């Protein structure tokens, strides 16, 4: 989806096609995500902005609203770490016949695990496309989320759903696994990203079965497996016989809230530079770095939500700049609100 400045139809098209298969966990949605480039619209000169008529202003605002709702991900140190490690692992696994190594992202909610894992997928897909130009039937990345209270059949069905294999109640798990593995091998899947892995509890019968199913998939599909989940060490993913096998094969990258360091400031500066507001003065947000850290507890998810929400408010109300007052008005998630009220209490996921 390209929202180049000046194309009025751009945002309209973006909104109209937003509903069909926009989930990352389906192949069309994933492909759109990986090929999507968000281009920042150009700001109008002050005189031209003030002389816009109603229709022109509505168009211009819609274009910018659409842009601010999907700001590009910021390359944080964690994201860079994940991409480097993931890239290394995919190369190491390229010729491994068994016991492929994997990667686990573990950390509290809102610390950018899903963003990191999907951005790595996007990068990997771009690398694969560059290595095999013109081939459209390759599916280098497979992205699934573990459904809550998952059974092996549900997980296998998630894999099939991503690939677009039709699954009805008649299909048994053997058929689904066979189809998924066959298609995955044929389409050269080389990275399998499994999100929400904390939904899998190894202590329960179903959880153990799902873990075995994932293990079986990793044996059949020659790909690097990436797991992401909330505090998986505490969820018991590494305990027991199955857990020890996972612990022996997977590198764990913890994702944590950002400390109040210079990286936090530069992160805010990056986001601020990507804003497209008429009257916003540069470095306003950088000056509010302490306030923002206190409000969001260093959670990048909350920070992105806060700034984007304030930007949308600024466009809608016509003030066209983000101020502390505007930021105060944006309601954040429960965890961040709690932290702002009791800054020294330990944060729970």
């Amino acid at each position, binding site marked *: 989806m390209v929202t180049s400045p000046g194309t009025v139809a751009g945002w309209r098209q973006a909104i109209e096609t937003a509903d069909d*298969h926009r989930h990352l966990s*389906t*192949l*069309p949605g994933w492909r759109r995500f990986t090929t999507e480039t968000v281009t920042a619209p150009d700001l109008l000169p002050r005189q031209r902005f003030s002389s816009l008529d109603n229709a022109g202003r509505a168009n211009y605002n819609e274009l910018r609203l659409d842009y601010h709702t999907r700001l590009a991900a910021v390359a944080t140190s964690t994201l860079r770490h994940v991409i480097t490690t993931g890239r290394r692992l995919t190369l190491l696994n390229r010729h491994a016949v068994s016991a492929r190594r994997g990667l686990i992202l573990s950390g509290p909610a809102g610390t950018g695990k899903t963003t990191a894992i999907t951005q790595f997928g996007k990068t990997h897909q771009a690398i694969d496309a560059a290595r095999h130009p013109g081939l459209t*039937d390759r*599916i280098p990345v497979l992205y699934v989320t573990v459904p809550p209270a998952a059974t092996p059949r549900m997980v296998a069905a998630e894999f099939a*759903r991503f*690939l*677009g*294999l*039709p*699954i*009805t109640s*008649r*299909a048994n798990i053997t*058929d689904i696994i*066979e*189809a998924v*593995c*066959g*298609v995955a091998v*044929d*389409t050269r899947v080389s990275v399998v990203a499994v999100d929400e892995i904390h939904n899998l509890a190894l202590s329960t019968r179903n959880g153990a079965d799902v873990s075995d199913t994932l293990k079986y998939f990793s044996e059949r599909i020659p790909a690097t497996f990436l797991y992401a989940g909330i505090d998986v060490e505490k969820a018991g993913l590494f305990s027991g016989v199955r857990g020890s096998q996972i612990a022996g094969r997977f590198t764990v990258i913890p994702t944590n809230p950002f400390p109040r360091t210079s990286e936090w400031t530069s992160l805010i500066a990056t986001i601020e530079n990507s804003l497209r507001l008429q009257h916003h003065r540069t470095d306003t947000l950088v000056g509010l770095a302490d306030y923002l850290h206190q409000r969001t507890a260093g959670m990048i998810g909350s920070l992105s939500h806060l700034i984007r929400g304030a930007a949308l408010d600024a466009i809608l109300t016509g003030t066209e700049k983000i101020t502390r007052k505007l930021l105060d008005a944006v309601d954040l998630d429960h965890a961040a609100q709690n932290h702002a009220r009791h800054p020294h209490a330990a944060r729970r996921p």
Partner: protein
Amino acid sequence: MTGDLLLPLPRQVRPSAAETAERYVHRLAEANHLRPSYLRLLLTTPPNSLGSIQLDKLAMLAGRAPANLVRVLPELAPRTRTPGRTRENEARKTLNEQRKRERFAAIRYDARLGMSIRALATKHHVSRRTVGKALQSEIPPPRKKIERQPTVLLGLREHIDAMLEADPAITAATIWQRLHDEHDATPSYPAVRTYITTRRTTRPQAPRLIDELPAVPATRRPADAPPQAATEEAAVRLLQLAFLEIRILTSAAHDNQSAEALDQRHQRANEIADICHDLTPWLDPHRRNNLADGLRHQWRSAGTRQRRWLQARFDQLGYDHRWLTELTPQTPPTNTDS
């Protein structure tokens, strides 16, 4: 997968004009490592029924526009029925039967006036066999029903029979599914079901071959009957000799002869053809039992010259024809002896 929404399959294959839609679905299923029967059942309305392939559903799974699919696989186009076509066909059939009855009546009328079979055939533009039928009964015999086995089951009947034998309670749907999944076949469900129904309702029959004899009826053969195999063999060889002789008699090599000699030759050829005319139907596997009776009838009704010819040829073949030639002829030997 919920509702009617089907997404394009991850692996696509290109449809070919040289294949059927069923075969295309099979290739699509194989490319995506799905059971062919499973994918096939998704393409019907309602889903999981055993109907025909729905164009829109196949188009969704194949990720192609319906119009493009129809261009390659025209059988997928929705069928249109011409209203009144059945009634029209029925009316045509009734009219045809009525005309046939009228013609039979006309033939019978002329026959009563004393016309010969050959003359009747010429006058009414029918074959002599049809004249024979008209003389036998005034009601035309009904059309023979052609027994056609669907070619789609060629080579599959043995497998179906084996499945029925292994499990007599097996359902037609299961057999259909196994044929699709295990035997790489694409029969429609109705074809399979019809075959299974006939297999269950009729006694098992050995496959019908053209040279195979039907079971000999339980009735005892008469004591004076000639050996069947030798008679059949002789009849076939006789037919062969007759063809050769007619060929020689009508050959263009004699064209420079006088018109009288030519006439004689043609008459002779006609006589031979008349004797052998009924040999072919008697050699039919179902009618071979009547071969001896037929030859007896032929012998009795033949002219002297024809009888002489028959005897000479049987001698030539070394066939023991005494059972036939010792019979007294029915017709006075004078009528053809000209």
